[in-house]
């Protein structure tokens, strides 16, 4: 095995059972493991609802640490659609040229910086910086705000010793409160002001709803983007031939990006609560119990993907669900994909090869499954072209 590999821990359970139960704070979860089943359940929001007690569809459950409903994440149709109609245009802004240009300036400067150094720890010295700066573009706030986001560290919600730390989440809520106050006093063109001015179904948003939306852009887009970027760097360091190929064949870059996102699946799974007794591949799901849609397992489904455990850079048909499927598909996907496009372009232009110096893997534990989602530490050395 190579140090940048991400093995698939779900294979046997996926093939033999298709569904696997894990415990989580005495509120067990049936993980759905096959691609077709994951898609079907994601599509069937009437039976598998996202609108449960706030925090319950997240695994590990956050029921005990927050009351704010996240929007649109914890809302079912038809209300969900009204929120998406408001939010979708804002989150498609990464397709605009000036957004892309600003992102290119940020990422180009960052690569230029790390090339000068002998070696870097990539998470704190690259991915966290990239993600935080790019987030200021998505929120349309001054780039200097990135310093605040960076100061929070990689995990906005958790401290070193406590995976569910309510105190740590409070600093984010306080920050958001303060920003909403500022936007009320001095409206600007940022996301806070835009949401304050917006209406959904003829009604102004409440402060609680605005908080629910903003918190999600921090929560959903932090670990996921950091892992996507870090894992990409690790892969390219470990596979210099791939960096060379991407440089020589720019036409495969779009496919390569989808393939890397499939392979890494930065979000392992997300839960739903059953509204009635149901069945997933002959496995009984009781009303009011939880299932999870395991994107990471679905993306290695051997009945759909040839050589599922290999990165096939120019994979042509790639029906992955790394950004979810159907109703709740990822609102930040355009931003994430644009980051990847600019990152790959700039690496091809500026970097000849990357040395993989050393790494400390981040392994998630889900019941009996151990899944590598990224790294706690990754030391790399960049070499200019």
């Amino acid at each position, binding site marked *: 095995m190579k140090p940048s590999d991400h093995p698939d821990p779900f294979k046997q359970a996926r093939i033999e059972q298709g569904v696997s139960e894990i415990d989580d704070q005495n509120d067990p979860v049936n993980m759905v493991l096959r691609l077709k089943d994951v898609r079907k359940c994601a599509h069937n929001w009437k039976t598998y609802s996202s609108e449960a007690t706030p925090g319950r569809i997240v695994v590990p459950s956050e029921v005990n640490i927050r009351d704010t409903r996240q929007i649109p994440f914890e809302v079912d149709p038809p209300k969900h659609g009204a929120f998406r109609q408001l939010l979708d245009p804002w989150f498609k802004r990464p397709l605009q040229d000036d957004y892309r240009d600003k992102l290119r300036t940020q990422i180009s400067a960052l690569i230029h910086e790390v090339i000068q150094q002998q070696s870097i720890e990539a998470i704190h010295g690259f991915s966290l910086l990239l993600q935080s700066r790019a987030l200021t573009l998505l929120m349309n706030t001054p780039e200097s705000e990135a310093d605040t986001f960076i100061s929070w560290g990689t995990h906005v919600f958790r401290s070193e010793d406590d995976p569910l730390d309510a105190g740590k989440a409070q600093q984010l809520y306080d920050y958001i409160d303060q920003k909403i106050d500022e936007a009320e006093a001095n409206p600007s063109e940022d996301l806070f002001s835009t949401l304050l001015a917006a209406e959904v179904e003829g009604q102004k948003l409440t402060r609680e709803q605005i908080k629910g939306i903003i918190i999600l852009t921090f929560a959903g887009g932090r670990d996921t983007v950091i892992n996507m970027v870090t894992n990409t760097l690790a892969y390219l360091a470990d596979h210099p031939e791939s960096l060379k190929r991407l440089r020589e064949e720019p036409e495969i870059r*779009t*496919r390569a990006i989808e393939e890397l996102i499939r392979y890494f699946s930065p979000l392992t799974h997300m839960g739903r609560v059953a509204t009635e007794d149901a069945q997933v591949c002959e496995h009984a799901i009781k009303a009011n119990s939880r299932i999870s849609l395991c994107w990471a397992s679905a993306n290695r489904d051997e009945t759909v993907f040839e050589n599922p455990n290999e990165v096939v850079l120019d*994979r042509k048909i790639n029906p992955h669900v790394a950004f979810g499927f159907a109703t709740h598909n990822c609102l930040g996907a355009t931003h994430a994909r644009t980051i990847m496009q600019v990152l790959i372009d700039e690496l091809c232009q500026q970097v000849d090869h990357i040395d993989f110096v050393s790494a400390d893997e981040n392994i998630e534990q889900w019941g009996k499954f151990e899944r590598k989602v990224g790294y706690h530490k990754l030391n790399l050395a960049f070499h200019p072209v």
Partner: protein
Amino acid sequence: MAKITFITKDDNTIVCEADSGSVMELAVQNGVKGIDGDCGGVCSCATCHVHVAPDSVERVGEAGEIEKDMLELDDEANERSRLCCQLEVSDELDGIVLHVAH
């Protein structure tokens, strides 16, 4: 050179011409409303869904198995549905008419 006609949900008709690339790319380049092509054409996002006009169906052909599985869960799907990122522009497609599904 193939001439391809898109008819959007709000009844705009857009006629495009190309000799290579995918039909999705052609639609995106021409700003056809309702065709986003989010995944770049790898059959993962279903934001390129069209209904093929009845008299174009024969030339366009049937969806592959993976594409069919994607379409199965699309509320707008019918027996003439295709994901147009899976259609390569060629002379074969000259003159076809596609109704955008969303």
